[in-house]
């Protein structure tokens, strides 16, 4: 490897792409009879990479602009039919939006409450308990879960899971009905927000599992062996070394899962009988989420109508929520920088 080549790549690119340049050294050398062609290629690639990086920002800016621009009509519009009476209707929009925001959060929280402990358990089993061959195939199967389209999950939830859960809901209602969330009359079909949450939990499981598994594997062997040498059991070793080391990674994995759960549309549309907000999570025709509400009503709303603007505006609200979740995840990860799998 010539020293000037590694220098030039080091200047323009990060070390990782520098390594890639080096690995393709043979082609680089045969192409570049002198340094000039190599440097040109290098600059070209740097330009491409920069273009890709800036491009994503531009796309995001356009999406944000589109949402904000078209949301305006939701809070500032005419009174029905009177052309010259445009005024602010912020209260109206908020009363339309808040049940959807709450519904979206409820379904996501249910999904995470179920998925996070299971995912951490599965990841620990793969990284620390299972024999190597089994761990590889289990990891593969878990990854496969992420490749199943959400309509398939939705169809499964609608036709199979929901009816199976009806007896459970009846039981919860009978014995725990005094808690408001299990009150009301339980759904005869099981098409409730909690069923949607269960389906979503299966969907976010592979995301959280993969992130956690990668982090758990990276725990320094020295720490683990030191703990074992001091007489710790395997469980004590995990609580003393693996989990503290992986805290940032676990949280970022959960946040990624939350992002997926917040935006999931098709599965919720298929599984949930939507309706207004209520305390009970086992009642029919209650709760709705932002994405499923948009999907159900957008096709038949007339472009430019107030309802159309409202749907876009509620999309903006979801955009902001997802952005906040991501920023929160970034912030948490940055506090545990050296351990995270997300950087």
């Amino acid at each position, binding site marked *: 490897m010539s020293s000037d080549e590694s220098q030039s790549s080091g200047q323009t690119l990060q070390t990782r792409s520098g390594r890639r340049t080096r690995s393709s050294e043979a082609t680089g050398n045969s192409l570049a009879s002198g340094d000039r062609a190599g440097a040109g290629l290098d600059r070209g690639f740097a330009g491409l990479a920069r273009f890709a990086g800036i491009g994503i920002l531009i796309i995001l800016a356009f999406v944000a602009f589109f949402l904000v621009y078209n949301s305006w009509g939701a809070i500032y519009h005419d009174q029905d039919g009177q052309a010259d009476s445009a005024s602010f209707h912020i209260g109206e929009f908020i009363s339309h939006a808040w049940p959807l925001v709450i519904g979206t959060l409820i379904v996501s929280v249910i999904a995470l409450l179920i998925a996070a402990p299971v995912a951490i358990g599965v990841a620990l089993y793969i990284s620390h308990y299972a024999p190597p061959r089994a761990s590889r195939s289990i990891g593969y199967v878990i990854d496969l879960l*992420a*490749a199943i*389209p*959400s*309509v398939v999950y939705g169809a499964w939830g*609608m036709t199979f899971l929901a*009816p199976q859960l009806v007896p459970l809901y009846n039981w919860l209602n009978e014995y725990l009905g005094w808690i408001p969330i299990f009150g009301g009359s339980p*759904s*005869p*079909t099981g*098409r409730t927000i909690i069923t949607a949450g269960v389906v979503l939990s299966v969907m976010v499981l*592979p*995301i959280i599992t*993969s*992130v956690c598994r*990668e982090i758990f594997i990276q725990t320094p062997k020295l720490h683990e062996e030191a703990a074992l040498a001091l007489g710790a059991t395997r469980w004590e070793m995990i609580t003393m070394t693996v989990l503290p080391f992986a805290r940032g990674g676990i949280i*970022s994995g959960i946040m*990624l899962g939350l*992002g*997926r759960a917040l*935006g*999931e*549309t*098709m599965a919720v*549309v*298929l599984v949930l*009988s*939507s*309706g*207004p907000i209520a305390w009970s999570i086992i009642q*029919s*025709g*209650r709760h709705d989420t932002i994405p499923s509400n948009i*999907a*159900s*009503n957008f*096709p*038949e*709303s*007339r*472009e430019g*109508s107030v309802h159309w603007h409202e749907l876009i505006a509620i999309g903006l609200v979801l955009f902001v929520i997802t952005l906040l979740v991501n920023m929160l995840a970034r912030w948490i990860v940055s506090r545990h920088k050296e351990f995270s*799998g*997300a950087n």
Partner: protein
Amino acid sequence: MKVASFGRAAAILSVASLALVACGGDNGNDGEDTTTDEATTEATDNGTEGGAEEEASGDLPSAADISGNFYGGGASSHETAMLEWISEFEGQSGGAAVEYASVGSGNGRSGFLSGEYQFAGSDAAMDEGEYEDSTNQCGPDGAFHLPTYIAPIGVAINLEGVDENVNLDADTLGSIFSGEITSWDDEAIAEHNPDLDLPSTNITVVHRQDTSGTTENFTEYLAAASSTWEWDADGEWPSEATAESAEGTGGVIGLASEIDGAITYADAGRIDDNFVTVNVEVGGDYTEISSEAAAAVVSASEPAGGGAPNDMAFEIARDTEEAGTYPIIQIAYTIWCNEYPSQDDADFAQAFAAYIVSEEAQQLAADVAGSAPISEELREEALEAIGQISAG
């Protein structure tokens, strides 16, 4: 790295689900979307059959003389029928290619008014402002509606132990769908069905989750005819009366067929053998759902008025007392210009509109989509209206 690859998978999945949502459509024409391509590619070359065509009126241009590209767009409720019509018409034409985009009624009307489409499909008639606009686009007489697709909406019941149609009146239907009557052996239901042995199964109302023309027409019927239904007509089910719901016609039918005691409403053509339907009380008699009864209520309805002289938009007589009519119907109109900018467009409009209202086309729609063929008198009126189309 791992994280990035999952982000990518998630992105692909979400795009896929968006595409699926977009295909969801309105009145359960799910899966029919693929026929669009066939319809347009089938277009060419076999124009020779065209001679056999031409309905009733002799002075309208025949399909065989039509060639070129034409566009329409709007309601998805008559999409299945429209695609069949287009494919047949193209076969008879001298090389015409017609495309119909299911973009929703409102978008179809605005596309038509901006000149993007030669015709629009719409579940609702144009309002006054839109008619005003159409006088700019379509000559001094503006645009007119043809009631080309009449779809009866059936009230379907899945109830074990009952295999005969159930008689109900509008008030009882209103009480059932608003959740006031909760059991099938309720006095109010039994009163209309002295011969039926009704079980005490709980009633589960299933309605559309998405905004739809079917819901709008059904709630319009309830709002007009039932004193127990408190809400206005709307494409979205009133949130105070929510029960079980599902996406699309296929969704409600699928869900209701799994629940004993379910009642729902859907395009008559989509209601299968798992259900009995409701015979609706009109003028003292119980009318079973049928094409004839559905077409009859259109004949009993008043023209909406206020549009072009040859306009055929109707104010459907939901609360009619005329025996033998079935008032829960949905009309999808096609909207046409009275005056087109070019002779080619005008010829196409006359030929295609005349084909759509023809007995053959109406029967085709009845076969593929379960619609009710329009009556002979409506057809004559429509052909007269089509005769007014001219080139400006």
